[in-house]
């Protein structure tokens, strides 16, 4: 097991479906009609149902990240950032990748902590549409020493 800044997933495709937006919005107790009603979304100026801003976290399910594959210790979520150049709406398809932007090692009170800053990028027509930065913290203990 080793972590290095620059490690990157293959590109993967994501298509945003109406039902996925609705289910996700329900799961975070969001009652904004723009996530549920296409007509209301269109009246508000969006081409289709609008996705909640934390929606791209679902895209992680579709990525294969070799460097996290073999871990059997829980990862702690330290920080999360989303930035949008355009809204995500139903019917959109994105080409995405996830890469390790930064790797830091810190001495914590209970052992060594690895701080792994990941970036998910979503593109449409070769243009960046959004980024989602996810910082995960891994607690190292005997048996899972990281190179």
């Amino acid at each position, binding site marked *: 097991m080793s972590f290095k800044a620059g490690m990157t997933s293959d590109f993967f495709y994501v298509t945003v479906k109406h039902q996925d937006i609705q289910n996700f919005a329900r799961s975070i107790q969001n009652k904004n009609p723009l*996530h549920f009603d296409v007509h209301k979304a269109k009246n508000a*100026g969006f081409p289709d149902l609008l996705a909640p801003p*934390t929606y791209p976290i679902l895209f992680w399910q579709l990525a294969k990240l070799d460097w996290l594959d073999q871990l059997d210790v*829980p990862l702690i979520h330290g920080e*999360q*950032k989303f930035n949008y150049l355009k*809204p995500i709406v139903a019917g959109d398809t994105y080409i995405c990748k996830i890469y390790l932007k930064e790797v830091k090692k810190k001495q914590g009170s209970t052992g060594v902590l690895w701080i792994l800053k990941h970036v998910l990028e979503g593109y449409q027509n070769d243009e960046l549409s959004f980024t989602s930065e996810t910082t995960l913290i891994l607690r190292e203990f005997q048996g899972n020493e990281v190179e």
Partner: protein
Amino acid sequence: MVAFTRGDYVCENESVIISANDVKKYAETSNDFNAIHLDFQSAVEAGFEREIVHGMLVMGIAESRLSVVFPTSFVVSYETKFLHPVLVGELLTISYVVIDEDLDFITIKIEVTIENGKIAIIGVIQFTNVGG
């Protein structure tokens, strides 16, 4: 944007309790079945008092309240730091304070406080008018 100025509370503080069922539903939607969220024993073994809520669920719920205050706006950025774990079933208080605003944008600081008075999550979210 809208009728807010710097320092205003956007809405009353929100009181939220995230139940084991809410966490189970979020696990199913997000496909994140990490045992520290769903199983008492695993959470305790990992050093927590009991099961903890997905950080992303708290982040999502915190935004959901604002989403109704600015129903036709669009979020250009949203970032949070997860400072303390949020336990399943504990009472959370969420506050929303305007830290910047102009014609097209409004920026709001979000704080999620847990029962012992500590801030569990701190965040900043920025909304803009569509086409604005």
